[in-house]
């Protein structure tokens, strides 16, 4: 019903497609931008917001409040529940469209089912994508940042404590980087070697990214009405 409202709203304004503001994480910028159409506007946020869920909600809320004066038909979040990072976020005058997922790995893999399947088979997986390697963190980049603040032995100890239960690096090929994939693949591989764990490549899928940008926002999406805030329960199947 809410989706119909979004569509009705844009019809009133004489638009063929809804005008959307998409707020996404920098790690999926390429995957989302490939579906850009004339009306859509994007804003990407630093991956670092993940480390502090409280800051994620604040940054998103600031941008949503700013967008309240724009003539968007809706605001779409390129975020999942992300460790409750989006809990409490609300829009006063526009519907919020959010993928009903725990984190972005589901988007890269293309469905909640395939994420569930992967986590059940290999719970200790560190997922990497080209965007993640470029804008996010890898075990090697973590180690390098630790080694900048602390001595080598401490940096190694910290990384070991953090990563000791991981058994696999999974590199997801989302198909957006047909030409430049090789260097990213190499880095993913190096990370597996660095940790001494398995390396695997998984096929990604553009389906959820496409739906996120273009609709129709079916079963894998939540529409949060204006004035209503995002809650953890909306994402859980209890």
């Amino acid at each position, binding site marked *: 019903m809410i989706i119909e409202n979004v569509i009705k709203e844009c019809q009133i304004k004489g638009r063929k497609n809804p005008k959307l503001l998409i707020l996404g994480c920098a790690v999926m910028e390429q995957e989302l931008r490939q579906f850009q159409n004339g009306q859509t506007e994007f804003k990407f946020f630093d991956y670092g917001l993940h480390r502090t869920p409280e800051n994620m909600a604040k940054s998103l809320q600031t941008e949503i409040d700013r967008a309240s004066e724009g003539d968007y038909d809706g605001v779409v979040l390129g975020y999942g529940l992300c460790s409750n990072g989006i809990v409490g976020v609300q829009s006063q005058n526009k519907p919020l469209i959010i993928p009903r997922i725990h984190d972005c790995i589901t988007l890269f893999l293309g469905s909640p089912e395939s994420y569930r399947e992967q986590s059940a088979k290999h719970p200790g997986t560190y997922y990497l994508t080209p965007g993640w390697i470029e804008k996010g963190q890898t075990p090697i980049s973590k180690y390098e940042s630790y080694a900048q603040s602390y001595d080598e032995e401490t940096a190694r100890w910290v990384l070991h404590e953090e990563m000791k239960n991981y058994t696999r690096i999974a590199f997801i090929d989302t198909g957006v980087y047909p030409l430049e994939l090789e260097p990213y693949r190499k880095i993913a591989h190096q990370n597996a070697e660095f940790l001494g764990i398995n390396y695997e490549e998984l096929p990604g899928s553009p389906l959820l990214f496409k739906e996120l940008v273009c609709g129709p926002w079916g079963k894998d999406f939540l529409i949060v009405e204006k004035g209503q805030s995002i809650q*953890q329960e909306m994402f859980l199947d209890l």
Partner: protein
Amino acid sequence: MIHREKKFNSVRIQPGLGEEKFEMTFNRLQQAVFLRDCKTVKTLTERMVMDGVDLFEILNQGLIPGMLEASERFRRGEFFIPELLMSSRALKIGLSILRPLIQEIRENVLGRVVIGTVKFDLHDIGKNLVIILLEGNGFEIIDIGVDVSPEKFVKAVEKNRAQILAMSSLLTSTMSWMKSTIELVHASGMNGLVKTMVGGAPVTSIFARNIGADAYCREATSAPALAKRLLGIEANGQTSFVK
């Protein structure tokens, strides 16, 4: 092990030492944990033990508040994983000095706790911190690791006759395994015999209530007080609910 000249556990102030000086030492110990300074934590804890300071005051006014501060900074995004891990390490050193002495006084363990990270979840930094804290406070811990199925949790509780079952989860996608585990505890007829305690970054008090947990541990440092309350042992400083 350190030998104390007197085993007066109620002695708080030694002759010649003013209240102020003690406050200062507690502050310094807090700072040392908070600033990840293992060496100073060791020296100060040993010195305070030798001076006859109450072991539980060393714990509750020195070591734990220092760790709490580090955890809070982590929550606010001012500290990251290295800082959290290094403070935990410093805390562990302090507690390893206190533990044998606490055991001497107590003789019996406070209670037996089975602890693990839920199914399909391999995060254990928080769980390991809770273990350090509970052991330091005199609980016996049976750590059954990560990626623990409800069946494995229940079996471990039965086998060890644990009074508390503590579960951790760091992913919203794995939290629901806490519910499955609690349901299995009930189905196995152990409801009255074991209390359940849940925690982990994405776990909220609402979620904990909804799944029927007996206690919700918002931060690792409140685990000992919560565990004591679950077993009917007097404890202060509790910040999360106990049913």
